[in-house]
């Protein structure tokens, strides 16, 4: 169960090697989390992520999960929920793709869309149903500011996040009053493996800062969290800027 401050006792991470997810898990383990499930493609990275969290005192298990294989989501995630209540599901998987290459290789672009959007739709719905049956829990969805306004530089990734974001908002409204809380997290540029080698955008942040924002959002039962918070204003302006202007922006 979550406590009065929204701190969960059990955590399921979809995308178990995500740096943001692991930073969040570390913070939550420092509070109340004792049981952690890391779902992801079996890999040494997933196992080392698990052992890293075990060192902090949590009971950590891994579960084979492939966002692209939506047919397998039910059988992969079902057993997790049948072992006990999950207080928090962190939907953290996603790929950035390579915009320049993906524009020329539609197959690769589709993989970005399928991972970030359809994979999330499938696993998000499965988790939402399980949370609804237990009558409580939070589903935290890692969206991105890139989904707020499509940009020339990363519109394939951005469009997949736009779909994810709209899906998560709608799901949150659908689950309103069911005891299940859906929180959409929109970080800006996060310095991580995913963005390594890319030119840094303004208002760049870190996985740890996103983790802190998630913890605060859980306490406040927020529906939308921007990281950093100032992006809410920036993106609000950008959303209303004419396309001719946005097209010329250097970011």
């Amino acid at each position, binding site marked *: 169960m979550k*406590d*009065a401050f929204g701190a969960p006792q059990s955590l399921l991470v979809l995308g178990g090697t995500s740096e943001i997810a692991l930073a969040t898990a570390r913070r939550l383990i420092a*509070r109340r989390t004792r049981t952690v499930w890391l779902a992801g493609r079996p890999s040494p990275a997933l196992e080392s992520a698990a052992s890293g969290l075990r060192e902090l005192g949590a009971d950590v298990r891994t579960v084979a999960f492939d966002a692209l294989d939506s047919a397998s989501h039910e059988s992969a995630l079902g057993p997790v929920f049948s072992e006990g209540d999950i207080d928090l599901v962190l939907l953290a998987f996603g790929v950035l793709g390579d915009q320049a290459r993906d524009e020329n290789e539609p197959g690769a672009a589709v993989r970005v869309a399928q991972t970030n959007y359809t994979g999330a739709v499938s696993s998000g719905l499965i988790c939402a149903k399980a949370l609804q*049956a237990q*009558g409580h829990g939070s589903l935290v969805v890692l969206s991105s500011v890139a989904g707020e306004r499509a940009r020339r530089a990363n519109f394939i990734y951005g469009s997949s996040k736009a779909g994810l974001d709209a899906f998560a908002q709608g799901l949150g409204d659908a689950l309103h*009053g069911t005891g299940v809380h859906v929180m959409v997290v929109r970080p800006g540029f996060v310095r991580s493996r995913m963005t390594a080698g890319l030119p840094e955008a303004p208002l760049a942040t870190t996985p740890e800062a996103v983790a802190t924002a998630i913890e605060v959002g859980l*306490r*406040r039962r927020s529906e939308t969290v921007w990281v950093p918070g100032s992006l809410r204003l920036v993106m609000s302006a950008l959303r209303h800027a004419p396309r001719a202007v946005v097209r010329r922006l250097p970011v």
Partner: protein
Amino acid sequence: MPADSTSTVTSASSAVASASVSDIAPAPVTGWGRTAPTTARLIRPRTYEEAAAAVRTCGARGGIARGLGRAYGDAAQNAGGAVFDMTGLDRIHAIDADGGTVLCDAGVSLHTLMQVLLPLGWFVPVTPGTRYVTVGGAIGADIHGKNHHVSGSFTRHVRALELLTADGEIRTVARDTPLFDATVGGMGLTGVVLAATVRLQPVETSLMSVDTERAKDLDDLMARLTATDHRYRYSVAWIDLLARGTSLGRSVLTRGDHAPVDALPARARRDPLAFRPLRLPAAPSLVPDGLLGRTTVGLFNELWYRKTPRARVGALQKISAFFHPLDGVPHWNRLYGRGGFVQYQFVVGYGQEGAVHRIVHRISRRRCPSFLAVLKRFGEGDPGWLSFPVPGWTLALDLPANLPGLGAFLDELDEEVAAAGGRVYLAKDARLRPELLAAMYPRLDEFRALRAELDPAGVFTSDLSRRLGL
């Protein structure tokens, strides 16, 4: 129903309820602090048979009894399962106006009991800071009041109770049995209390004779309470936790007893047992977060302290004003806004005054805006295995749940409390670290063992029991 019977329920009535239980749409439920909402199917049994049927058919996620929802945390919530709203079982079966006992259903509120019993010259043996608790809730949480140092907790005055257990049977539970001791203070986890026989307190009037005095700091307060508490039936101290420096722990002591008839002015003597509590308009449902912040609470505390006379003796106050000032504002819990609030109450034994000092220091240093903090001395404890009161000092305070870092701060206070051999009150808890529970409640293992035997399938489950592994 006869107090000594064990009744079984017919399968016909359980079939009726099973249809209704699964038809009920889940609704959000929170405690009084309005934190951590979860959903459950709310079932409101009107008879013992309906209650038994609800227990038998409540499904895999179990059920828990709920009274008037005054537990601050998640004690009367059951995510995904059933919550039995006991306020439908609200009959007073018998009053012995000579001997001073009442036999009533668990859903009867202390407010109703006062309305009915005061004109007969009887008062409830123990009342907490609100009249809007049920008898069942008072037993489940083993509540205490301002008279704990004299009268003990509520269940000291319970002669026997009817308990609906996980098998759907109704058992009469007598004092001095393991089931009684597990049930009183057992947070509803041994079964559903259906009815109880409660011993009453005789009173001549419905007014209180109250002595008020100020204490300039924490040492002064504790010295005064220690020296003179035994002279009063009721005693409590309001403490200003925002005061700093030399006035750290400055407080207002209000202590008194039921006023005898001859203490009343002539006019009041015509109707000495009148019970007409004041009800103000309810708090609005939408209050911005942070209304009860540092500034407002600091201002309130300052005024409250200054307006109190340095010493006043024998002032007459209504029962409602003396015991239940907050009941005057229905839904006062909304004043904390959407974020809700947590109440933290702990007790540490006599000889652990240092721990009280350290905790008050920490709260004051952190500038926690605690609106209503009270310090009280407990008397002898009662035998409930998870019953909260033990002889010592108890401090209770309200804090807005959205204060940054409050979770970690209260964890630190827990460590201090546990190190001093103290405990926190489960009826108010919404955030205790489960690992500390066994140290705070040494009879937890017996409680768990009895539950495992009596309720192997875990029918009685609450968010509190899930969170703490009770």
